[in-house]
């Protein structure tokens, strides 16, 4: 039998049984499309988060008090000894390094604000003017914290958009005096709503000078020091510089941890990558289900076409011929299903990108290749049993329709 004729014969029988052909196509299409769509979403989410992190500035180092790993039995790791506080002086000591562009000390706590009898509990952030550029925040109104001595407290506050809406409502917030704890502060600016920060919603915080926060929260210690370096290459020497400087200042104790933005990004990259593989795995199960459906339908097909198979044998078709006819039929079906699913997957992810432009939902290449390969593979694999059953039919009984 010529290959062309095999293809044509299989194609004829696909067309001859429209309902089951469409049913199997549907199963194949849905599963391939779902692999592409789900991985596109996973990839989109990964890219989105990566983009968020990158927007924080990739050359950023975060200094936090305490060590997250054991470094031998130094004095600071002895039981019951809390790490030394990170202070404003520590932060100031870091400004000397030429490869550091900006430094922002951070202080975080909870405070109650009051304005004309309205009260709200908020997250209070103490920092300096540098943090605006360092975290690439934007202002909606007014000005940010003034450039001033870090240890000078001043009664000014920049508030998030939600606080503005809830406390001041329709009133203009900038210029108003409100209470934070028991002190009076003047609102000098409002943060724009698109201000982004991981782990903290800029819309819900109030920012005051770091010295003011220290007095409000009644603590000299800092929560973090954010450091931005000139370049990516500068990060490692700067990190060493920070560790050395602080160690000297803390009487030789290594009691701080310096995290690079890179490490955080890599962690998220790994987590979200795993997530994408996870959803791809779930979608792959639907491919398997489609394969089993194909097997079932092909089994029905074989029993429906028993007489035809018997006839083909009588006309001179060998077992291997019957086997290849059925397999070619299944392969054609899988190919069309894969093509439809692929098309829908690509169109669908385009639709997602239109609806959610922030999510760059492109199905990854590995998902495209493997969904096609797995779909064709299951299509063939699960047709093998029905095809062998057909090939093994006894022609005499098959002709009688048994």
């Amino acid at each position, binding site marked *: 039998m010529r290959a062309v004729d095999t293809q044509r014969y299989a194609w004829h029988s696909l067309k001859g049984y429209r309902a089951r052909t469409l049913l199997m196509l549907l199963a194949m299409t849905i599963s391939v499309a779902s692999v592409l769509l789900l991985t596109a979403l996973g990839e989109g989410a990964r890219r989105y988060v990566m983009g968020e992190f990158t927007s924080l500035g990739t050359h950023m180092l975060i200094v936090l008090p305490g060590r997250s790993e054991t470094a031998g039995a130094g004095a600071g790791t002895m039981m019951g000894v809390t790490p030394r506080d990170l202070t404003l002086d520590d932060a100031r000591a870091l400004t000397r390094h030429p490869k550091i562009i900006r430094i922002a000390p951070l202080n975080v706590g909870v405070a109650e604000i009051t304005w004309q009898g309205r009260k709200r509990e908020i997250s209070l952030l103490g920092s300096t003017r540098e943090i605006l550029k360092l975290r690439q925040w934007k202002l909606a109104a007014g000005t940010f914290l003034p450039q001033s001595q870090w240890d000078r407290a001043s009664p000014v506050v920049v508030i998030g958009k939600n606080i503005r809406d809830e406390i001041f409502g329709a009133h203009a917030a900038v210029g108003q005096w409100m209470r934070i704890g028991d002190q009076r502060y003047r609102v000098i600016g409002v943060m724009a709503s698109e201000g982004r920060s991981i782990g903290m919603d800029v819309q819900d915080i109030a920012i005051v000078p770091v010295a003011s926060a220290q007095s409000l929260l009644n603590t000299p210690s800092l929560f973090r020091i954010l450091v931005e370096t000139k370049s990516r290459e500068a990060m490692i020497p700067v990190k060493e510089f920070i560790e050395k400087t602080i160690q000297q200042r803390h009487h030789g104790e290594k009691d701080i941890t310096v995290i690079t933005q890179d490490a955080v990004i890599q962690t998220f990259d790994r987590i979200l990558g795993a997530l994408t593989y996870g959803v791809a795995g779930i979608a792959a199960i639907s491919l398997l289900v489609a394969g089993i459906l194909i097997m079932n339908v092909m089994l029905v097909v074989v029993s429906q076409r028993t007489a035809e198979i018997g006839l083909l044998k009588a006309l*001179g078709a060998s077992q291997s011929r019957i086997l290849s006819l059925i397999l070619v039929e299944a392969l054609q079906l899988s190919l069309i299903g894969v093509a439809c699913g692929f098309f829908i997957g690509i169109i669908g992810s385009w639709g997602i990108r239109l609806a959610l432009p922030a999510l760059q939902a492109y199905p990854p290449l590995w998902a495209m290749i493997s969904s096609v390969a797995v779909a064709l593979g299951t299509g063939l694999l699960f047709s093998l049993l029905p095809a062998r059953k057909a090939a093994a039919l006894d022609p005499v009984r098959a002709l009688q329709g048994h």
Partner: protein
Amino acid sequence: MIRLEQIQRDFQVGEQIVHALDHIDLQIEQGEYVSVMGPSGSGKSTLLNLLGLLDRPTAGRYQLNGKEVTEMDEAERARTRNELIGFVFQAFHLIPRLTARENIELPLILSAVEPDLRRQRVDAALAAMNLQDRAEHRPDQLSGGQRQRVAIARATITEPSVLLADEPTGNLDQKSGADVIKTLEKLNDKGITLIVVTHDQQLGKRSQRAIKMLDGRICADNQQTD
């Protein structure tokens, strides 16, 4: 030429073994016209299936055109069916989704004949069966007689040496049946070995040689003259 020696075909039915063919010796020369008659269960269909290589004997030897059939493997028997044997069934066994032309073409497709040559031969077969204007019709658009003529065209398209017909007129009315018989006999006149299994006494009388079967044995084998 067909030669059967001590052919046995046993079936297991429940716990009993049924001898569908019981030590059959038979020789049929090329170009003979043989009818096989006998009551249901006498083994005539089993004999026909065996002659057509659709079934294998439990014991005995079968030579077809000098070749030992019982020693062939599955693929070889399939090829032999394609080249040397034509089947005509009571139920026609046309593939419903294919046209008359495509049905007739099937054996040629299976033996990988080139499309141009296929077309020529199918055209000739359609003309011989007087079916030219039915070429593009599907079986459900044909009468019973036409369907059986399509089936005969299909059975003879590879120019086999043996044509096996199992109750070829069983599903047809008197006139179509007579037409089909005439068609088969015309093919026999041109040299094909024609073996017809039938219940029909009239049909049985037309053949040159009449074999009667009972309980898996040949009980009568007569040359007939009209």
